[in-house]
């Protein structure tokens, strides 16, 4: 078994127009900047993107949105230090937004990966974000029904990966990456290093290879925060 792909471009080449794409990361931490830029180069349009945020500055997800490739964004917090790209598209009515509380977003993704079509959460009960959703009472408390979230593709960032797709992460860059890996039909992981098979201690593997379809090397990956301080713009 060898899930490694020789280039970032090949890793994303079959993502079509209209695809749903989960993109890992929380702000810039754990964001697969190199895979996102490869997706911009590939150019599919009318994408539904699932991410916690809506991009920052003019690189990564913000650049994908600026390129006009995103029709709908599902996220919890479309605010950032420099949210101009998303704000302009949103206020011009050029992008749809589905706002989801952060924990509900995470659990919907986890549920998608775990084959659980719906679940109940106290989060958002009695608020505008629960409108139209079924409510039920358990042990005297009210809960809102939420549905699973799945995607055609997930673009994620990990620290080390082997050819079987086993992954480790670095610090808080883990965030949404492991659960998105579970919830997409095709999961594409960029890794800072390819670990020789057998060198990853099974005790430390966070994402088992069963959840990963492609592993591609992106050595010394860019940090969104650093790029933004340099006022970088992609492409």
């Amino acid at each position, binding site marked *: 078994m060898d899930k490694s792909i020789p280039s970032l471009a090949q890793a994303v080449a079959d993502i079509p127009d209209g695809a749903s794409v989960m993109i890992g990361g929380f702000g810039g931490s*754990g964001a697969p900047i190199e895979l996102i830029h490869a997706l911009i180069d590939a150019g599919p349009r009318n994408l539904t993107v699932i991410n916690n945020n809506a991009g920052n500055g003019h690189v990564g997800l913000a650049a994908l949105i600026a390129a006009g490739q995103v029709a709908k964004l599902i996220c919890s917090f479309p605010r950032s230090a420099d949210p101009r790209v998303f704000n302009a598209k949103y206020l011009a009515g050029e992008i749809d937004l589905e706002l989801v*509380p952060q924990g509900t977003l995470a659990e919907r*993704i986890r549920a998608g990966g775990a084959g659980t079509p719906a679940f109940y959460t106290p989060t958002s009960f009695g608020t*505008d974000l629960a409108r139209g959703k079924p409510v039920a009472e358990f042990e005297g408390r009210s809960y809102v029904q939420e549905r699973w979230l799945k995607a055609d593709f997930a673009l994620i960032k990990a620290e080390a990966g082997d050819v079987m797709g086993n992954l480790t992460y670095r*610090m808080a860059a883990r965030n949404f990456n492991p659960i998105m890996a579970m919830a997409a039909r095709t999961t594409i992981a960029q890794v800072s290093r390819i670990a020789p098979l057998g060198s990853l201690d099974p005790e430390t593997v966070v994402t088992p290879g069963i959840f990963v379809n492609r592993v591609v090397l992106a050595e010394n990956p860019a940090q969104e925060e650093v790029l933004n301080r340099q006022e970088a713009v992609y492409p």
Partner: protein
Amino acid sequence: MTNPAMIDLEAVKLTNAQMAWRAAQDIEDGAYVNLGIGLPELVAKFQPDGREAIFHTENGVLGFGPAPAKGAEDWDLINAGKKAVTLKPGAAFFHHADSFAMVRGGHLNVAILGAYEVAENGDLANWSTGAGGVPAVGGAMDLVHGARRVAVITDHVTKSGAPKLLTRCTLPLTGVGCVTRIYSSLAVIDIAQGRFVLREKVAGLSVEQLQSLTGAKLHIEAPVTDLTAAQVA
């Protein structure tokens, strides 16, 4: 209703740091704590001697510490406010679903959040001014239903002097009946049985003056003590 008695609030109110200091005094040793972005984050600076709280951040860290020196940031190690942090001994990393299992599953002792409005029935509004623009919610709606104790830290009135503590919230709700204690710039108020119960107030205001700056009735069940805070910055 805007400050009818023309009270000089600047002279009597607590600073942001003092509000945070007061909130920190109620955090027990060994508590797992989530602090909202902004003003609540200051609470971490004022842990009383001999007590250690473990701070949780939504993006997957337990046991983070203060910001690193400028230039020493590691952008894989940030908090929910996207600011660089450091690790304390005993820290742990986890993914987002586990992070919110800690929240929703009732494993946090305390969450301290900011507020636009708090109502006497415990409702909180802190995510949307309802004024259009781009909405953003983050983890606030999860935190208000997860932590065993949900407290709010806030100025007692808005910048224009209008009460933020009300009979009912007017802005879009973050959560229903979730807040149990308010640390304001003028008072410490508990919410119990759908009522504001005044516990402490700054010495420079009478109960009547405080009531005039509050949008719902303040109930007094026991002697109200002076709200004092260390001279902290």
